[in-house]
């Protein structure tokens, strides 16, 4: 579940960065159209990709339920962090991505 959580959180952060307003708030610049597309594509890829570790560990029925739970939790966490601690919200996503190979090694 941990790896799925890290990937979901990073995915939502990428989707968040694909919008003009949040990109401006977090990175203090307006994204170019290619950049925006890049963020959006990587966000969706991460979200979809996070299904795999959840299902691989717990099987289809339990895994999908866990994935849904983690999906909702990570979005909730990100949205609550954004207005208060934007830097932390962003660095958590980065740290999560860096830690995901370790999490993969431990859980899979």
């Amino acid at each position, binding site marked *: *579940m941990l790896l799925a959580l890290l990937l979901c959180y990073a995915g*939502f952060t990428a*989707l*968040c960065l694909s*919008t003009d*307003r*949040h990109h401006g708030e977090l990175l203090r610049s307006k994204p170019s159209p290619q950049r925006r597309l890049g963020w959006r594509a990587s966000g969706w890829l991460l979200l979809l990709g996070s299904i795999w570790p959840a299902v691989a560990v717990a099987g289809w*029925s*339990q895994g999908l*339920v*866990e994935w*849904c*739970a*983690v*999906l*909702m*939790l990570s*979005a*909730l966490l*990100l*949205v*609550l962090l*954004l*207005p*208060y601690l934007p830097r932390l919200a962003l660095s958590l996503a980065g740290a999560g991505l860096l830690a995901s190979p370790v999490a993969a090694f431990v859980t899979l």
Partner: protein
Amino acid sequence: MKEGFRQAMAWLHTWVGLIFGWLLFAIFLTGTLAYFKDEITHWMQPEVQAHPLDDARSLAVAQAYLQQHAPDAARWFITLPNSRDPGLSVMWQDKLDPGKRGNFVQKVVDPVSGEAVLARDSKGGEFFYRFHFQLQMPHPWGRWLSTLAAMVMFVALITGIVTHKKIFKDFFTFRPRKGQRSWLDGHNAVGVLVLPFHLMITYSSLVIFMSMVMPAPIMASYGADTRAFFSEMFPATDNAPALGQPAPLQSLVPMYTQARAQWAGGQVGRLAVNNPGDVNASVNIFRAGSDRVAQDFGSMVSFNGATGELLRVGGGQSLPALIGGTFYGLHMGHFATPVLRWLYFICGLAGTAMIGTGLVMWLGKRQLKHARTGVMPYELRLVETLNIASMSGLLIAIGAFFWANRLLPASFAERSDWEVQAFFIAWGLSLLHAALRRGRWGWIEQLSCAALLLGAVPLLNAITTEQHLGVSLARGDWAMAGFDLTCLGSGVFLAWAAWKMRCRMAPQPTAERALGLNLTREAR
């Protein structure tokens, strides 16, 4: 035309949400607590000790106990201890006179010593579970009302998606400290981010009661004989009658082993022995609901109790039964591991917060219009009173329920009923208080009271039992320790909310913005 449709949906969302909001808030919060029903029961019956799990030993102990105390019963039920609920529970039903139902007697037995545990009489977490769909009303009115509330919730969710058209565009938006705007943001954020859970929990609650709400398909297929439907759905009700010739009951342990082999190592939840001591005794072994997501009531193995012969293996669902069982299982969350159970709990709190923020927003919008004159019309006063009593008052009632459990003496007559009375008395008093105290002060005082009640729970536990945090943590009894810590955490949070409201009150006594963020999370 399109705008007209959206306005109609907004009207429906507003009014349906207001009328049923108070009830739905209570249903959601108690239902959320019910995810930790076993843990709450464990805390409320601290006399039941946790032992390392050993099913064979527990089963032998239960059988010996029942053989000694209820050899002539019509039925025995045995529920084995598990990691969440350490009690070995045995129940029996007295012999049935024709046309009359025998009485049920339930005992908790210590799985090591084999003696009945003299646990205090308490409903435990079962109270919250029952309340969230029966609402403490006579059967079947509570079920009907809560099902109606579920339908209204479904309508409110769908109209909410239509009304707040920007929720998906503003997916990541939450702007605190901006008054009404923050409330709307918070309402939308907990609504849309946890939307899959909201839709699942609301729709599945309708599926659970489908035989009550929509009996037409059953009647069409089975005619007036609805019993036939239920014995097909729940095959365990279809057992051989007693012959009246005595025969000793075989040991249950080999049957238990055989049943588990049938499920490739699946866990046993409950055993039912019909007519123990008769030649025609039957033993039904049910699979634990924690094994799979989809609930399968037919998943059981049946034996002849006198010979030990395997009679039939139930289970294997048709597709519609599998879909229904999946919704049932998803709603109940019996299969959830500790982490997933906490996620369920958080989702439930988010749903509660969504309802709470909606109620506060309804009032806030209308109060603004009257802020200048300073005179509030009667109906807004009424809504404010009900808002305070239904949200912070419910928290006080929950705290009072836990306190009553520790303070009422064990020998008190009808003890468990008085715990429930304490819950409703506290709720009633908070309604009275909300009616007398105006506005913000009602909130602050009630939140402080709830904070005090819940925050002091670990202290209360330490004074009245031997199982304070030091002991439970050292022993690794996470249900007991987790309960204390969660109460402490909620108490701290509520105290923070009350303090925050008080701080914001001084400079701007009338402005709505002071409500700000506090209440968004107050709903927990």
